[in-house]
């Protein structure tokens, strides 16, 4: 295995793609070359977050195979072609093709283990009783067929209340996410063809939720992902991830795609958001037969980069709010050499929280995917 700098050399866009600079949210963030001498036979862990309007990729390098300590190797993001109409087969094919074209190319001999995070809006997501899961899957398949996806659906599920109340049964409530098998296989094949060893594909909130504590050191009651075009919440209980649902997004509310830099401009949206968050937390705590937690609400995503958003949201929620940030030197350090860790700016890693979490999730995978 090579210990040289591994990936994240951006690929030039194809002729039919708009130029990189012309894409509205296109940006290539700083990419730090890896000092060859500092890596000890480390594999590269790559998180590929497929979003609603683009993809974000982050790669981590493990300092030592036996030590869970990573160095941030690079991050990269790009937009999908402008969205037109609802999500369907054609749109999925466009996104997958763009992803394959724009993914950083792997170096021969390097081991790049990738975990793909899929957005909730590509799935049918519902909280339902175990007895009703089959009928939900049937209706999902029908919906997918109408959108041009033939064949079976694959389901991913987890209980709203965790194992700490005993093994969940058929009568309990589950969060069920369904996805056309053809879509996921097409996506995984496209990424694998670029030289990545795809270890797993997960709903993005799952990876974000599971990696939150090891990466940030913040024991949160829920994770709220806030991007301009999508927002979601996933509740953390004693056994792991619980209730997960979509939240209203800023763009769907304002119909405006202008980047927000001032938290005061977000006030109307934050009011609506805090209401949805509170309802979710109340529902979850009631299911868990507990009272509302005093733990912080952890926010991530591009909107979480907005100065002052956490205090405004905390005021609305009447709960502590923390911004996702890496835990000092225990997490990936944004340094060139890896020898002297510089403090990571608070909001620097926020946008890439999901991609970093997905990358970290690659350490929890086996021959049959994610092992939790």
């Amino acid at each position, binding site marked *: 295995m090579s210990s040289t700098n591994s990936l994240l050399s951006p690929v030039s866009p194809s002729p039919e793609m708009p130029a990189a600079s012309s894409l509205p949210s296109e940006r290539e963030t700083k990419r730090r070359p890896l000092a060859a001498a500092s890596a000890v036979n480390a594999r590269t862990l790559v998180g590929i977050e497929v979003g609603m309007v683009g993809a974000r990729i982050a790669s981590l390098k493990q300092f030592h195979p036996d030590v869970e300590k990573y160095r941030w190797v690079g991050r990269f993001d790009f937009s999908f072609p402008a969205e037109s109409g609802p999500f369907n087969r054609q749109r999925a094919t466009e996104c997958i093709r763009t992803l394959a074209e724009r993914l950083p190319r792997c170096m021969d001999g390097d081991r790049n283990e990738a975990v793909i995070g*899929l957005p909730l809006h590509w799935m049918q997501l519902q909280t339902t009783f*175990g007895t009703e*899961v*089959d009928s939900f*899957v049937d209706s999902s398949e029908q919906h997918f067929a109408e959108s041009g996806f033939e064949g*079976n659906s*694959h*389901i*991913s*599920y*987890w*209980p709203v209340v965790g*194992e700490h109340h005993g*093994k*969940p*049964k*058929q009568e*309990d409530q*589950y969060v069920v*996410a369904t*996805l056309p*098998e053809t879509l*996921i*296989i097409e996506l*995984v094949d496209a990424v694998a063809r670029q030289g990545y060893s*795809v270890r*797993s*594909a*997960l*709903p993005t909130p*799952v990876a974000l939720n599971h990696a939150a504590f090891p990466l940030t050191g913040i024991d949160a009651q829920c994770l709220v992902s806030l991007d301009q075009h999508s927002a979601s919440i996933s509740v953390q209980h004693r056994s*792991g991830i619980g209730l997960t649902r979509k939240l209203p997004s800023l763009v769907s509310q304002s119909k405006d795609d202008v980047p927000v830099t001032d938290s005061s401009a977000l006030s109307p949206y934050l009011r609506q958001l805090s209401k949805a968050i509170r309802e979710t937390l109340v529902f979850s705590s009631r299911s868990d037969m507990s009272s509302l937690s005093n733990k912080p609400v952890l926010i991530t995503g591009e909107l979480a980069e907005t100065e002052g958003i956490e205090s405004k949201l905390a005021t609305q929620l009447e709960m502590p709010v923390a911004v996702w940030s890496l835990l000092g030197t225990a997490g990936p350090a944004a340094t060139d050499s890896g020898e002297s860790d510089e403090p990571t700016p608070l909001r620097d890693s926020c946008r890439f929280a999901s991609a970093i979490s997905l990358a970290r999730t690659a350490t929890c995978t086996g*021959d*049959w*995917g*994610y092992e*939790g």
Partner: protein
Amino acid sequence: MTRKPFDPSDQWQLFELIPSEYFAKQKAHQTIYVWFAFIAALMALLAVLTSVGLRKQYVQAHQHATRAANAISGDIQAPGAAKGDSLRLNEVVLVEPRGAANASLQRTGTDDPMRSVVARAERWRSDPSFVAMARELDQLLAKLMERSGTELTVHSLDFQNPRSWTEDAFEEDTAPSLVTLSISIRGQHAIDAWCRDMRDEPSIKQVEVVASATIRDETLYTITIVPAGDSP
């Protein structure tokens, strides 16, 4: 394909979005790749071993022919020559493939004046029977080359007289009575036909292919020729 009904008692939570069938297929492919690699490695090994074996066979055949020739040629005593002086030719001698009728044996890359069997038999010229046999052989080799229509390689041509194996016989000025010829030629049919023709020649009593080894499309023959009328 029918879907398995939801049953959390099997697995109470499942996060993975990639179907297990996909992983199973990947593993199956990996197994196939491993087998392919194994078979390819095995074939490469076999190819190497076969190549080594063929080379060894060739070398052994050549050594055998040389040994056979040396065993009976070391004691050739030419008239007027010193004891142990022989007419053994271990150098490769080529017969020109064209103009067979006039072709003669030539040493490769040397300026040896002995251009033909007849020329090499100069030292035995005093023995008319030997000269006649040598001339006969020269013509027969030319015939063989003409018959095969291809290149003939004479590896060695040894004359010897079994009677001179005894100490006393060295003093006798007798022409060789046995010829060992080591040649390689393409085509079994040419050498068979040539041997038949040789046997029909009045000056030849016996022709026998004592050893042969085929390397690719070329066969190395060791042939003993017993001239008529002077056999032991």
